[in-house]
């Protein structure tokens, strides 16, 4: 059973967490700048969603945005400087930055 929202209620926020909006913004920017084609994006996101469904992921917004992020990473692998190994190194740098930064201060690499 679908759970349609009240069509006349104020629009609910489209994002449960900031990273979801940021992930879509990155995808849109890459398409707008021509680094990915819109068709590549749709196909890759479609495959990520189909995979999530096959794996039995719950039918939720979080599952959807996880697929968005997965698709973004899949397409990033085709771009210079965004490979999985570059991402691994950068992620470790961010984790280290978060751990060494005192609470409440801006986190910088």
């Amino acid at each position, binding site marked *: *059973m*679908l*759970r*349609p*929202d009240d*069509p*006349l209620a104020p*629009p*609910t*926020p*489209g*994002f449960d*967490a*900031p*990273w979801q*909006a*940021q*992930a879509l*913004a*990155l995808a*849109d*920017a*890459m*398409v707008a*700048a021509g*680094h990915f*084609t*819109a*068709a590549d*994006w*749709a*196909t890759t*996101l*479609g495959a990520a*969603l189909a995979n999530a*469904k096959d794996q039995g992921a719950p*039918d*939720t*917004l979080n599952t*959807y*945005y*996880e697929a968005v*992020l997965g698709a*973004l*990473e899949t397409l*990033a692998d085709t*771009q*210079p*400087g*965004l490979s999985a190994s*570059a*991402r691994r190194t*950068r*992620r470790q740098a*961010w*984790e280290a930055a*978060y*751990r060494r930064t005192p*609470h409440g201060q801006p986190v910088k*690499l």
Partner: protein
Amino acid sequence: MATFDADEAARLHRDLHSHLPSDPALRVKTLESLMVERGFASEATLDAWVEAYSDHIGPKRGARVIARAWTDPAFKARLLEDAAVAIKDFGFEGSATAHLKAVENTDTRHNMVVCTLCSCYPFALLGMSPAWYKSFEYRARAVREPRKVLAEFGVSLPDGVDIRVWDSTAELRYLVIPQRPDGTKGWDENRLAAIVTRNSMIGTDRDLDPGKA
């Protein structure tokens, strides 16, 4: 003798990691910082996008287009001819509406939009798509059993009204033009726009209520 307290170790572990953002947030941060650094995107553009879609880009844009179509036959003809061009009158064009087709509801035809592949949606015109539009369930069932899905949205189509389901793609997205309800004669565009619901422009709502203006 050294002791090992599993609960204490778990607490320390949780504490250590509690300062870290969630896994997806870290992955996005990683991608974003690399993309900005490598010149794929600028931080200002990304921030502006997030602000726009979290805040002021929403279905009111589409509602204005519909209200114009109801009051200006020449605009409606242009909208049906090439919606991507017509919405430039409002400055609403965007990368997600480069190719846009408007489909009109009539007494004998109801139109409904889905993206069976992923979640293609005219978001420069309607804002972020609702959660249900992205769900596995809507995407699978809208084509297979549209009347049943519509009923779950509270819409029962009378006999004699056929239904056409449009499957969006990255190249072509859709905007449903709902029927102008009776009792709105002489209304201006702003008043009309106020009764146009987001779902009516996706086709999961049909009869608009003038009492809601």
